[in-house]
């Protein structure tokens, strides 16, 4: 499967990956110029964390080999796609219990800010042919896709 590899030492915290993720998952048509950066509907699926020393630690869904989120999903909305190996999410099946949020040991998942009815989850930009927008947008090449 393909995974986004992170070299956190290279991260400058510019959040371009987050903006690219927002753009990739917005519901409206448009360009990065008119992406509403204040609209919670457009929230990012990746995050730039900081440790106590101020070092940036990019948090990207691992699409784990043995995904805790899938194991905890009581509706069948989260599943590991047998073809791509990616953990995908069928919003229509989700029961909004958020046990996946509870169980993701890395804290990647969150309920959507606007409605608290769905999970904000990386889909590896499946609609864009599994070419993650975040990776394309990283000016430091701190994230890249590898076959693992």
């Amino acid at each position, binding site marked *: 499967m393909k995974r986004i590899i992170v070299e956190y030492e290279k991260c400058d915290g510019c*959040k371009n990956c987050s903006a690219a993720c927002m*753009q990739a998952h917005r519901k409206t048509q448009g360009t990065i*110029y008119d992406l509403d950066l*204040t609209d919670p509907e457009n929230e990012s699926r990746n995050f730039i964390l900081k440790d106590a020393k101020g070092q940036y630690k990019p948090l990207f869904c691992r699409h784990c080999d043995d995904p805790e989120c899938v194991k905890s999903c009581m509706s069948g909305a989260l599943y590991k796609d047998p073809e791509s190996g990616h953990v995908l999410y069928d919003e229509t099946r989700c029961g909004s219990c958020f046990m996946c949020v509870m169980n993701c040991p890395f804290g990647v998942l969150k309920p959507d800010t606007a409605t608290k009815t769905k999970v904000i989850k990386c889909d590896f930009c499946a609609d864009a042919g599994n070419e993650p927008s975040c990776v394309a*947008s990283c000016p430091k090449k701190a994230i890249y896709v590898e076959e693992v």
Partner: protein
Amino acid sequence: MNQCYSCTTCKSADKPLQEFIAGLPMETSHHRVESQSTKCAFGLQGVCCRLCSNGPCRITPESPRGICGASADTIVVRNLLRAVASGSGCYIHVVENTALNVKNTAKTKGQIKGIGTLNRLAALFGIEEEDVHKRAEAVADAVLKDLYLPEYEKMALTEKLAYKPRYDKWKELGLLPGGAKSEVFHGVVKCSTNLNSDPVNMLLDCLKLGISTGIYGLVLTNLLNDVVLGEPEIRFAPVGLRVIDPDYINIMITGHQHSMFTFLQNRLTDQDVKEKARKAGAKGFKLVGCTCVGQDLQLRGAHYTEIFDGHAGNNYTSEAILATGGIDAVISEFNCTLPGIEPICDELKIKQICIDNVAKKANAQLKEFDFENRPAVTEEIIDEILEAYKARRGSVPMNLLKEHGNDATLTGVSETSLKNFLGGTWQPLIDLIVSGDIKGVAGVVGCSNLTAGGHDVLTVDLVKELIARDIIVLTAGCSSGGIENCGLMTKEAAKLAGPKLRAVCEKLGIPPVLNFGPCLAIGRLEIVATELAEALHVDLPELPLVLSAAQWLEEQALADGCYGLALGLPLHLGLPPFVTGSKTAVQVLTQDMKELTGGQVIINSDAKASADILEQIILEKRQGLHI
């Protein structure tokens, strides 16, 4: 493997140039577009604030305000005002130097080449001096006096130069500028940390800066230059890399202040200097045009047939011009002199000389060209360039592109030369517009950039779309450099126009795109527009006239754009000016401005869609005029 630096150069509307650059063994800006293609979205939208140590603050759904509480609106418009103030400062610097040059020329009884323009200005300013030099000095003084006024004193010449209905509108909106330099100061203060937070208030300042920039930085700079440098005359001239003649010692000129080096320019054709060149093995000296100052020389080329080889290309052609190996020195006095030329100059042993310290390049020699010392400095510069020529010729390979560009681009168009061409009156043009043979007028102006589709791609595509719709295009700025190298200013380009415009062009023997020269000449376009409006007894926003700075590049362009908006004209931009993060800014610039000044910003990076929008506006304005 081959000798190319890399194969990832950006597109150019100028295909031979694109191929030439792709084949170069050195890096140019065209190579760097790819590696800079990841743009910070916060920067693009203008919502990154670095005005205090709490920052940088960026706007996201989780952080809709900066630490200080600044909203996206405040952050965006503050950044915009900074840019506009800075851009205005650049143009005001240019007009200040230009006026000083007129004054000094007059005081030293130098040559006044544009007596017609001098008289026109003197009449406008109410100056009645018998002596031509005293008249010129008084004109220059009147301009300088206004530039140096405090912010709270309105400049006197605004009313004399502005079209009356516009002046009244500006007065009504409180947009009349105080001293132009003080307005820049005021703008810079206003957008500093935790001062103004009112987006609309700051946008009005942008308009005010646009007015002082336009009337002084643009209109007056042109006219003052005409006084001492001569008036433009319509003619055909060669353009592109073909103009470089390796038999001469070639000096590429970059910047915006032609008047700064005319002394040097004249000296280069003196017999003793030509003799020096001959001794070094060259036929003499030549100036090769690049950027807006090259456009300026091209525009007045009728006066400089001996020294000026022609315009080789715009700002993003400068690296290619140097890479031909045929250039021995670069004399720069302002922007748009790219820092990227420095390593190329080093590699090809090209001497870099700056004559204005505001544009001092890192590895250039600064030779400040003040009026008193200019004879001595000129001799120093000539000797340095001769040394460079001797040191490099023979050891540096030539990589000329003689087939690039064309031999007969129409140039020398100004508000005066064009009117004279039409028989001393605008009536023939008005008749053509009324009859619909010319549907409307589009000013495609401003810069060249590499990101709106590539080098000049959007500009050239848009021009083609517009002329195909029978809209005549007037150009000014680096956009002209790209458009002319692509052949759109030759007579043959008439066949790319729509049938009506084509017929007009073929009858008059002109191209469908008329080049007014440097970006400063946006001021000349405004004079044309004003005179047309006067003839029709309407205000500017009613004319079937649109502006496009399709590939605007920098802060000066934003100040120009604000002038266009203050004039009440529709202004198309290919890329947004880092404002889309503010809903208020977008609303005011693209919608509310129509009510305010009559202007509006249109942002669209697609040539066809942009042309559709601009054509629609022209049709609506025609309807408004019942034509």
